[in-house]
C-alpha cells in the first residue's frame, strides 16, 4: 500500500537524519528533549484543562469563557509547538521502531483527532456567546476534548511500556 510505503520511507529517513542520529548517539540529549516534552505536557494540558473545567462550570466561573480562552491561547499554542517539535525529535531517534508500536499509532490517531477537534468545534464553542450555547452541547464538547487529549497522554505513556522489536519491522524494509 502506498501510504504504508510512504510512512516507512519517512521513518527510515528520520532514523538516518542528523538529529535522529545525534540524539540517539548522545547519552544526555534524549532525556534533555524529554524534559521539554514533559514541561510542555504540563502547560498544554493545564490550559486545555482550564478551558474544559470552565466549560463544565467547575472552575473560573467568574470569568467569561471566551476571555479566559484569549488569555491562555498564547500559552496553549506555544506549548503545543514545543510538544510537537520535542515529540518529533524523540520519535526520530527510533522512528522505524515506532512505526510498529501500537501505542504510538494510537497516540498519533488521538493526536490528529484532538488537534482537529480543538481548532474547530472546541474553539467555536469556547469563543461563542455563552448564553447561546446549550448546556448539553457545552458539556459534551468539554468531555470529548478531555477524552481525546487523555487518549494522547495515555498513548504516549504506553509507548515506553510497549516493547516492539525493531527487527520485525526492519525485516519488512529490506529488499
Amino acid at each position: 500500500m502506498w501510504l504504508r510505503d510512504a510512512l516507512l520511507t519517512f521513518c527510515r529517513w528520520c532514523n538516518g537524519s542528523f538529529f535522529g542520529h545525534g540524539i540517539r548517539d548522545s547519552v544526555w540529549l534524549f532525556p534533555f528533549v524529554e524534559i521539554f516534552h514533559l514541561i510542555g505536557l504540563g502547560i498544554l494540558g493545564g490550559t486545555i484543562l482550564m478551558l474544559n473545567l470552565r466549560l463544565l462550570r467547575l472552575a473560573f466561573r467568574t470569568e467569561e469563557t471566551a476571555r479566559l480562552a484569549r488569555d491562555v491561547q498564547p500559552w496553549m499554542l506555544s506549548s503545543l509547538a514545543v510538544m510537537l517539535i520535542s515529540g518529533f525529535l524523540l520519535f526520530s531517534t527510533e522512528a522505524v521502531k515506532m512505526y510498529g508500536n501500537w501505542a504510538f499509532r494510537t497516540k498519533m490517531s488521538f493526536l490528529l483527532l484532538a488537534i482537529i477537534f480543538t481548532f474547530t468545534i472546541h474553539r467555536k464553542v469556547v469563543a461563542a456567546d455563552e448564553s447561546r450555547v446549550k448546556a448539553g452541547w457545552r458539556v459534551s464538547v468539554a468531555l470529548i476534548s478531555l477524552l481525546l487529549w487523555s487518549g494522547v497522554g495515555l498513548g504516549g505513556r504506553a509507548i515506553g511500556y510497549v516493547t516492539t522489536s525493531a527487527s520485525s519491522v526492519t525485516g519488512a524494509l529490506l529488499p
Partner: protein
Amino acid sequence: MWFENFLQWLANTPFSMWMRGSVWAEPIVESIHVLTLTLFLGFAILLDMRLLGVCLVRKRVSEVLAQFNPWLFGGFAIMVVTGILLFCGDPVSFYHTEPPFFKAKMIMLVLAGINVLIFNVSIGRKVADWDAATSTPPAAKVAAVCSLVLWILIVAAGRAIAYALPPP
C-alpha cells in the same frame, strides 16, 4: 541503620511485593502520576506566570490564587499519593538511585514547600495591597522564579529516577 531497616521492611510488605509482581499496577499508577502534571505542573506554571505578570494579567492575583488553589491542592495530593505508591513498589532501589536523583527530588520538594510557606507569610499575606497593580512586586517575582526553577528541576529529577532504577 533504622531507615535502611524501614526500607527493607517496606519492600517485604505484601503491598510492595504486589506492586512489583503486578503487570498493571505500576504502569497505571505511573500514568496517573505523569498525567497529573497537566493539573499540578500546568496550573502551578500558569500561577507563577501570573505572579511574574505575563499571563492572565487582567485578573487579580488574589482571584487567580483563589481559583487555582483547590485544583493545585487536589493535583498535589494525587501526585503525592501516586508517588508514594510508586516508591513503595521498590523503596530500596528508589532511595539508592545513583546519581542520587531521588534524594535530590525530595530535597527540592521540601524547598518548593518552604518557598510556598515564605510566600504565604510574607508578600502573599498582603496580596490585597498589590493585587490590582499592573506590575507585581519584586518579592512575588522572586517567589515565582524560585517555584518555576524548582518544579522544572523536580520533573527532571523525577524522570531521571526512572533511568537510574535497575531494569525490571
